[in-house]
Structure formats: C-alpha cells, structure tokens
C-alpha cells in the first residue's frame, strides 16, 4: 500500500495519533525519507575515532553510513555503499581503514572523503564516458556533518534547517553532560549494549517523557528492590543498585513537580527542577575536582542540574547526570535496535563510570528487569494495535489548546506535551522534500 504525504499527516491530530504511524510499513518508508532524511541525526562520538582512518558504522534511519576520521583531523560521514555494485564497504562496527577504504568485491579504493583513489585495470573505462558517471564520484559523502562538543550529527538532505536552529536550547543537556567532566571532555567506553525491541521506535521516544508509568510498570522491579532492601539488617551500607532502582517508585507528586520542558523541533526533557537522578551518593573526591575546575558556584550549578531524559528528536536521548546515551535505531515499522552507550567523564574518579555502567546494565540492557518491564508494554501495544476497533492513540494529558503557539515552555511533569511536541515536529518534516 502506498501513501501520500497529505494523508499521512492526517494520521496525527492535536491530541491523538492513528496507530498506522506505528504499524504501517508504508508510513515507515515515508518517515525514513522525510523525517530521517531532513533531521539532524546522531551518528557517533569523536572519541570513538581518535586516529586517521578510524571509523564506526551506523545508520541514519535505515541508510547505512560510516563515520570516519579523515587525514586533516576532520570527521566525515559517507554512505556505506560502494558506487560500483552497491556492496557495503565497511562491515565491522568499528575499525581502521588506513588511508583508503577498499571495497572487498572488485578492489575499488576510496580516499577517506569518499573520492575514488584507484580502480584496478583502469584502461577498461577509457573512452567510455566513465568520468561523468555517478560511480566516478566515489562513495557519497553525507553533505552536512556537525560536531558539537564531540557529538557528531549528520543531515542527509542537501538543504534544510541548520544544526544550531534544529537543536537550539536543547544542546544545553549535552553541555551539562560534558561539563560534568572536570576537563570538559567525554570518552565513549564500556562497550555498547544492544537490545532488540519488537516495536516501533517512536514508542521508546514517547516513553522518555512518560512519567505516569514508572510507579506502575516498574513496581515489579523497582518496588521489589525497595522491598528486598527493607529486609536487610539495619546499618547495611546503601547498595548502589538499590540507589538506582528505588527512585523509579517515586510518587505521582514527585513526577508532577519535577517538570517537563519542551523546545522547538520536537526536543524536550523531563526533570526541570529535580529527577530520579537527584539523590545519588557523592563519589569521594569528585566535587572537589569540579570546584577546582569551575569554582564552587558553577560546579554546584552543573551538578544540581539533574535532568532525567532529554529527548533529541527524532531518535536519541541522553541522561547527563548518569552519562548515558541511547539511540533508537529504526529497523522496520515493528523493529527497533536500542543501543546504550556509556561515557567516562575524563578526569573524574572511576567510580562514576562504575555507576554509569551499573545503571545501563540494570535499566537498559536485554538482561535488565526495568528493560523487561518497558519492553513488555511496547510489545503488547505493537501486537494489539493491529486491531481496527479504535485506531487512535491518546496523548491528551494536560493538553492546552494554546500550546502549539508556545515554542518553548516548562509544564507539569506529567504532561504529554513533549509527546505532542514530537509529533508536531514529525508532521512538519513530513512536508519537506525527501533528500
């Protein structure tokens, strides 16, 4: 079934969306073209490719790309496809290409900017007009790449919204995560947890600011952690994992008061005044390092910012206070690859990294009880949405008819405004020409 853009836009209403946005392969194909073609999408972190020729492979929507450190130290992003017969050129998650990418099929080689370096038996192309072919242009570079404090984003479309305009104030959450390093630097470490979800990627994006679910869906994991902890003998030192689990059980009042902020272009975050990350034990020596680096006032203001999830439209989120990044990679309408990345705060004590990894393992891994709680809900929804009975999904909580006119705002922490904000951005990109 094909779809045109106008009818697809009708699937998104002010306070409800049609289930086809989660289930229809035709809608998914349009999203890959228009949403992922026109948005700035996260592709990786500069610390993953320190040396010339270092590369990582990933996807922008479903387009395979390779992020590479070029000879001049710049970071490039190329479509990961040989212009000859289409073979994927770089196949490992990460590696080093040396000075050239070499296609394993017929040994065409490409400079790190994608241009053709050599083709075996070149005489065969003489007087064929090959120079004017698209193949002669080499591996296609993604036209627009922006590196912001070592976070690398790319936009497939030749023209469109600029990086700063797209993210605007939203970049403040990346700033806060980076500023938590006494030397202002992050490093990707600890490996990547990859968790396959049989659901649409947008369910994960919406869950980021769904603050009415933790005390319900996670009672099984977080509630059990609290109960098990109560049985421990008095005076047992606070267990770091219980410290991670327990805040999920906070009350509705806690979540209402923590606040949600929305920004233009579908970005936003939970935890304006406080969050489930506010009350972790201090790691010895860290605060002193921060004060030495930034002065007491600024160090306090960096560390008091306890934003919970910052949703970067269309498919990425960071948790500054715990130094994690999750990428929701769309695979199909009903398949999403969730990657959880973790960062070392360069210059800070290792115990911070230890906590970051524990958080990721307990909350976001295929072996995480909290992950099981969430995925069960997404998969039940993905299955049941096929029913035609009532095809609309509600997102009306704390809706204000005037809200669309407000580009940025802070609201009650249980509002579904950010979910509506994401769909408004989605709908807007569904008008843009595909790249």
């Amino acid at each position, binding site marked *: 079934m094909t779809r045109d853009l106008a009818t697809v836009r009708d699937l998104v209403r002010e306070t409800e969306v049609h289930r086809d946005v989660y289930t229809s392969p035709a809608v998914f194909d349009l999203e890959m073209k228009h949403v992922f073609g026109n948005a700035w999408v996260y592709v990786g972190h500069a610390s993953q490719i320190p040396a010339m020729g270092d590369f990582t492979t990933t996807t922008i929507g479903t387009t395979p790309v390779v992020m590479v450190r070029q000879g001049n130290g710049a970071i490039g992003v190329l479509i990961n496809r040989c212009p000859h017969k289409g073979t994927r050129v770089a196949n490992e998650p990460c590696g080093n290409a040396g000075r050239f990418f070499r296609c394993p099929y017929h040994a065409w080689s490409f400079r790190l900017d994608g241009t053709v370096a050599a083709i075996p038996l070149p005489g065969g192309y003489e007087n064929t007009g090959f120079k004017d072919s698209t193949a002669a242009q080499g591996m296609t570079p993604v036209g627009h790449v922006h590196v912001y404090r070592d976070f690398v984003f790319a936009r497939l479309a030749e023209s469109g919204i600029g990086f700063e305009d797209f993210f605007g104030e939203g970049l403040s959450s990346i700033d806060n995560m980076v500023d938590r390093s006494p030397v202002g630097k992050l490093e990707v470490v600890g*490996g990547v947890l990859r968790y*396959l979800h049989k659901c649409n990627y947008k369910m994960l994006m919406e869950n980021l600011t769904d603050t009415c679910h933790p005390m319900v869906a996670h009672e099984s994991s977080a509630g059990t952690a609290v109960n098990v902890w109560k049985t421990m003998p008095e005076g047992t030192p606070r267990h770091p994992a219980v410290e991670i689990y327990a805040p999920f059980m906070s009350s509705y009042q806690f979540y209402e008061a923590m606040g949600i902020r929305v920004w233009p272009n579908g970005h936003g975050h939970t935890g304006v005044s406080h969050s489930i990350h506010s009350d972790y034990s201090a790691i010895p020596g860290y605060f002193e390092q921060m004060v030495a680096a930034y002065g007491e006032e600024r160090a306090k203001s960096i560390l008091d910012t306890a934003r919970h999830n910052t949703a970067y439209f269309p498919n990425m989120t960071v948790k500054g206070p715990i130094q994690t990044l999750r990428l929701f990679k769309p695979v199909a309408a009903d398949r999403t690859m969730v990657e959880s990345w973790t960062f070392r705060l360069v210059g800070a004590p290792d115990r911070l990294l230890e906590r970051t*990894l524990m958080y990721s393992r307990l909350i976001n891994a295929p*072996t995480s009880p909290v992950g099981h709680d969430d995925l069960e809900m997404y998969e039940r929804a993905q299955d049941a949405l096929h029913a035609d009975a009532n095809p609309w999904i509600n997102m009306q909580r704390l809706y204000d008819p005037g809200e669309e006119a407000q580009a940025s705002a802070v609201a009650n922490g249980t509002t579904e405004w950010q979910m509506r904000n994401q769909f408004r951005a989605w709908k807007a990109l569904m008008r843009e020409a595909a790249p």
Partner: protein
Amino acid sequence: MTDHEAIAFVLHEARLIDEQRLDEWLDLFTEDGRYWMPLEMGQTDPILHNSLFYDDKILLRIRIERLKGAKTYSQKPKSRCHHLMQAPLVERREGGEISTWAAFHYVETRLDEQTLYAGWARHTLVVEDGRPRIRLKRVDLVNCDSAFGNIQLFM
C-alpha cells in the same frame, strides 16, 4: 570436594534453574558470590567495562523476587528454560577453590517464542559449612556481543 562432587554440583545447579527452584539456587552462592555474564569475548574487567550481568547476591535476590511478583507483567505468562550441559571438566584447584568448565545450550521460552543460546559456564567453587558453594559463576555466550531481546531467567 572430589572432582565427582564438583561435577555433580554443577549439573545440579543447572537443574535447580530449569526447575525454577530459585531460592535454593540462590542459596548455592557464597555471601560474596557473583553471577557474571560478560559482554565481550575474553573480558577481564567486570567493573569498568559493561556486562550483561554482574550481580551480587542482593541483585540476584531482587531478580528472583521480581520473577515471583504479582505485578511482574513480563512474566504473565511465565518464561521457562532448559539447559543441555556437556559433562563439566574440573580445570583447576587452587587455594581451596575448584574451577570447572562446561559447554552448554540453553533455551528460554515464553508464549510462542523459543530462543536458543550457547556458551560456556565457568564455576569457581569453594567449600563452606561443609558443602560446595559458588563464589563466581561466569557465563560466556558464544555471541555475547549480539543484540538480544529479553533474557529474563538465568543461564
């Protein structure tokens, strides 16, 4: 502990998991015991590199209590599992510790889905209160760095 006792213990341990006698299973661990499933082939560091599991006894207890919970929706209906173990080998005896190694296939099922995992279990056993106990159970999956769906029980 004789070699034979160590081998019988490792097989019994897998059986307790398959029969979901998880309180008895937990009791096999020493107080400082760990259940470790690395994320990387040949991983040596469980602290500053991530793992699929690196649970102490409290974390295991939380998981086990959760599996029993009335509001554990990802266990409605419940998962089941099955180990097929190769005969364990006793690899090493050192300072009161015995290390065993065993290749296994493990199947976890729920609803209409069945997922097969393959790997190697390494047990570090000690004798405490006159019985063998687990100080470390390390499970290396042959595809430890693959993407997975839910892994809800224990291998």
